[in-house]
């Protein structure tokens, strides 16, 4: 890490680099066949399931779980459900998922030409964009 110690920006940059923990790196990619096979098996997002898991873990933060001593519903838990419902709703209904496919994807195509059936082997040469929806 070569830093110009007479330059405040370079010094701040040095600290920022260490603090960003960028050296940890990202996880390895998930194998594509596993994604294709595994995604249909997933149950999708459920606000109720998420809210119940959060409420169940309240004790980890030292908070009581369940109804108030008066017997009334705990407004904090109600609020938790509402919060998750709204977040999941936004993810499912408002979120935009864009997929960028780089060029260089190998392909095998079959078609027909005036001289008869043809097979094409090659790779894509353009960037491709796709959309997705979270469920």
């Amino acid at each position, binding site marked *: 890490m070569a830093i110009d110690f007479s330059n405040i920006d370079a010094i701040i940059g040095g*600290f920022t680099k260490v603090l960003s923990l960028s050296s940890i790196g990202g996880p390895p990619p998930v194998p594509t066949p596993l994604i294709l096979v595994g995604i249909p098996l997933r149950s999708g997002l459920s606000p109720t399931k998420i809210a119940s898991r959060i409420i169940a873990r309240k004790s980890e933060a030292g908070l009581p779980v369940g109804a108030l001593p008066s017997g009334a519903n705990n407004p904090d838990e109600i609020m938790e459900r509402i919060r998750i419902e709204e977040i999941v709703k936004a993810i499912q209904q408002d979120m935009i998922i864009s997929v960028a496919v780089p060029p260089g994807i190998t392909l095998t195509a079959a078609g027909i030409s005036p001289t008869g059936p043809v097979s094409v082997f090659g790779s894509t040469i353009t960037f491709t964009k796709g959309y997705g929806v979270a469920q």
Partner: protein
Amino acid sequence: MSLADNKRSVFTTIGSYNSLNQQGKSPSQTDLYPSVNNKNDIVPFLLDVLKTVAGSVALSEAIGGMFGSLINKAEPQLKTALKKQFTQSNASEPLPSTFNNNGITVPVKTVDNNGVLKNNPNSDVGNLTYGSTTNFNTKAYDAILNSGTFVNYNNMQIKYNQSSDSFQIKPAGGSTTVGSFFDDYIDNVDLIDKKSLLSNVMDNFYGTLAKTQGKTIQQIYNELQTETLLNQVLDDDDSFVILPEKYDELLAKAREMANGSVNYDLGCGLMPSELSLNDFSKTVSSISGSTDPFYIGNQLGATIDQSTNATQDLTTENKETIKDGFFQKIIRIFTVKMLEAVTTTPQVRVLFAIMSSLQNNGVIKLNSPTEDMKNFKTCIKCMAKEIMRLVAAFIFLLAISYLIKLLKPIIKKVIKEKINQYTGVITSLTGANKLTDAII
């Protein structure tokens, strides 16, 4: 949803937007650290980071490390920087015969601005300010004792003339060109003496030596002006002009130093601080012989307790605040005294005198140090930049070492988190999680 629900939704949504609007702007952040808003304050910013990461103990280690290892590491780098400043267009020219034969004659007071040579090296004060027995100051003092006789020092010969209170300094032979003369001198000079640097830093804080030597207020006032200008250069202000309102402040400090008791605002009001010569000498001697940053830091911190003994009602918290302020201030003084050591001490003033003579056909254009700074502006600015760079690098590396200690458990946690996340994704895609849920 029913029609009523839809209508209700309109009102509640409007209500929520109103609520968000009424929240207004978030309060602006207040900065606990003044270094955030001081644009170019590199060292104060680094000290704030250091303190945030590791607390007061890190400040103590920083100052200990500066007096311990930084001085030793800095010397060769500062020599290289100084040599560059003395490599002028006449570097390849042979030394003029008049210089070889007669050298230069310069008044002692022009070379020795702070009156170091007025003390006997074996006196209590001399023991703290002279440094090694083979450095320029000691040899110059030998020349004074043996008036009229040349004394060898480095690649020079020094002769004291009592009637004119001046030194005649000429080459001892060996160097052929102007450039090699300066290079040889700088290579073999003791640029920074740890003990005398430490004494100067401590004296600036407590005024112990100034009082013991019986320095006049005017003399201390002049020295403080030089120090202020160097301080300004370290802050990128090369105007070499002291603001009028600053003079009163310097005069007040000169008076306090002459009395051996200096008042400081170290974060919780003005504190008088004074240290007896005995305690002063003990601290300097024990620190200058050590390279352990924690020991040095603790010894310096202990002087604060000794110096504020007379002040009643100091809580532990106040003492810690005072110590933090003391360490931050002493780091600043250390930086200025480092710059002084390579620009205004006798062994460097001699170089300026020789350079001035060689550039002006034997005429030495040296006056008071405050005036000379303007003539040697480039050199002083470059040395200031080099010292700031060294100090900043030292504190930065210390802060990073503490930061790595702080981040190590967090990095472990993040790595574990990533492994768990990846495992979770894989098991959810294979359906293994459902199997696990079913078993549980």
